[in-house]
């Protein structure tokens, strides 16, 4: 295939990716160094109120947004360097808090709070997803042929459900005296409120994510299990390997590429955790990095969106993605070189 045909085939796709992914990325980087604000001017206003024997007049200096001929607010964009980053990171405040009260004090600053949760979430859910996924795959593999279809159908439901709705459905089971909260209260014989402190919400969010992603891992592993070489398993039996040893020395090494694949996908997706915060309405207690950017982008009561701060927090989120991607890219590159 010569270059011209190749360009014709790939062109539209590359164009869309450049226009809607690469360009916004560059513009976010630029936005994070600039701030757009209305120009304020100070005007002297004399306001008089009726009084006796004379009116009482007060002269005030007020700052009001400057208007142009059409009555629109004049806005000016200024270069502020790293100021937006400083506003998001609040390094000085964070440092003082840490010096005074130790590491937990970082919880009072949004960015550090979000970073802490995002990392904990990513690292805790990863082994759980892999473990449950492998377990479910082995169980489906063990089941008789007739029930495999229905079981896979049921397993797909948590995976396919809209993330916000999935989180909401778990939320409703626990909200107030929802039946699962009632069950826990009956079991522990004490009052439980799942949404009154951060750690219970975090546990629920992680449980939800495992429920949501484990089916994906299970189905991928199940497909992998179909290709395990049964001769290798049988010779392991003849060599006297126990069930556990067969698992450890034959099955797991065979599934290793799939384990890496799922880990990579899960790390990428878990780092972007966002819908759970909306579904569990947990912003008062638990927030994530992507939610922080989203929150800056949502207009506040005055209708302003803090675009530059959102850009700065978006760029800081990107650093994590970059660290995550390096091993993945290295592996793909090696595969590519090995494949040719």
């Amino acid at each position, binding site marked *: 295939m010569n270059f011209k045909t190749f360009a014709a085939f790939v062109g539209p796709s590359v164009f869309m990716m450049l226009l809607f992914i690469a360009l916004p*990325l560059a513009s976010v980087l630029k936005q994070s160094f600039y701030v757009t604000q209305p120009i304020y001017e100070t005007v002297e206003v004399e306001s008089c109120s009726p009084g006796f024997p004379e009116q009482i007049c007060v002269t005030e200096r007020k700052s009001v947004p400057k208007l142009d001929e059409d009555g629109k607010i004049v806005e000016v964009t200024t270069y502020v360097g790293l100021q937006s980053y400083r506003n998001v990171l609040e390094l000085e405040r964070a440092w003082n808090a840490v010096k005074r009260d130790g590491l937990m004090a970082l919880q009072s600053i949004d960015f550090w709070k979000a970073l802490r949760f995002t990392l904990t979430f990513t690292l805790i859910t990863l082994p759980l997803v892999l473990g449950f996924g492998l377990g479910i795959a082995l169980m489906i593999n063990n089941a008789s042929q007739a029930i495999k279809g229905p079981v896979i159908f049921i397993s797909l439901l948590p995976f396919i459900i809209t993330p916000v709705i999935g989180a909401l459905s778990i939320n409703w089971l626990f909200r107030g005296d929802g039946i699962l909260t009632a069950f826990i209260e009956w079991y522990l014989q004490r009052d439980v409120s799942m949404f009154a402190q951060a750690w219970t919400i975090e546990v629920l969010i992680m449980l939800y994510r495992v429920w949501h992603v484990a089916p994906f891992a299970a189905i991928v592993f199940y497909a992998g299990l179909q290709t395990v070489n049964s001769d290798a398993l049988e010779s392991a039996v003849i060599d006297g390997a126990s069930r556990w040893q067969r698992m450890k020395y034959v099955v797991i090494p065979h599934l290793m590429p799939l384990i890496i694949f799922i880990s990579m996908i899960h790390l990428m997706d878990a780092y972007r955790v966002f819908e759970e915060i909306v579904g569990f309405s947990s912003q008062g207690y638990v927030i994530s990095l992507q939610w922080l950017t989203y929150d800056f982008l949502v207009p506040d009561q005055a209708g302003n969106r803090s675009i530059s701060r959102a850009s700065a927090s978006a760029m800081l989120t990107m650093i994590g993605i970059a660290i995550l991607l390096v091993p993945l890219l290295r592996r793909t590159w090696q595969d590519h070189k090995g494949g040719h």
Partner: protein
Amino acid sequence: MSSRALRQPFALKFTSATFLAIWCIVAAFPIFWITVMSFKSPVDAFSSNPLNVVFGPSTRAGGNGLSILDILMGIVVIWITARLMTRTLPMMVAAYAPAGQKWIGWVIGSLVVAIGFLVTFFAILPAILDALNPVFGPLGRDIIGLTTEHYKTVWIDRGFSNNFKNSMIVTTGVVTVSLTVGTLAGYGLARSGSGLAFAILIIALVFRALPHSVLVAGYLPVFISSSEWLAPILGENAPTLYGKPFAVIAVLVAINQPFTIWMLRSFFQSIPAELDEAARVDGCNHFQAFRRVIMPVMWPGVITTGLFSFLLGYNDFLVTSLLLDAQNQTMVPAIAGMFSRETTTTDQVVAVAAAVSITAPLFFLVMVFQRQIVSGLTAGAVKG
């Protein structure tokens, strides 16, 4: 499995089956439960006693309920419909649809069965049962409370049908454009072994990892002020991109593009290159080879990729909630607005009904396309 050496002891099989059953309950329970809740009056739906939620005494007291007779008749109608779909319809399609256009037969047949089912189930059956219930005594007495008022509130009073329409516009747009653009690119990438093709794939992989909020932070200021900077090109009536479904479609297509081209590329690689080389020898150029030889055999891959594009467009919350205005809002962000004002329990049950309404199409999607979804999940993975 045939080998005797690998046979498992009964205890292991039993444990495995038990845990599998537990998993199935865990997987389906939340969805099943919110479905049950959505049909009950608020007092029952949020009752802490599960039996109250299932049988709904206060819903029943309100005069809404099902008798044993209702349930039996309902099951019979559903069973007949299932038989029609799985037995009679394939035979009818095989007999009457012209060869090569089987899918038209399927579409028409499914529509007829669906409309027939809806009319029978929701119009004819209630009328018959209203007359029969008093005659049958205890069998005709209500035992399960059930009300559809929350669905009426959601779809009629709260204007959810408008959100549904917007969701359909966005998802249809995303699937069509995504597949058109992605199929061409996937084919090009699969058939070209050049370094440039590989570089594009790697960059796509990087783009796949980007948080969507990063991209939206880039779009928002540009979209809001678009009527100003588009004015020199498009003149007076330059559109404001903010709030427009087509702008969101373009954004979602682009976000979905990395995944689409990776997936379609792996599908095209499984089609032997000899096929289009033969067509080239017969005098086709690349585009003709693509249209005449590849297009007829690529549909399984395209359908699978289309399913995942549909899911992306349908499930998206972040992009649609930030880039669409209230009038063009899709279903998922609309429900977020619904539960943020859930001040009374009635509002909460209404939100539950909305959630179930969003989930129902996905349920049928898995039912019909289970095999394609599974093959799509494993396609990228098994290759490693």
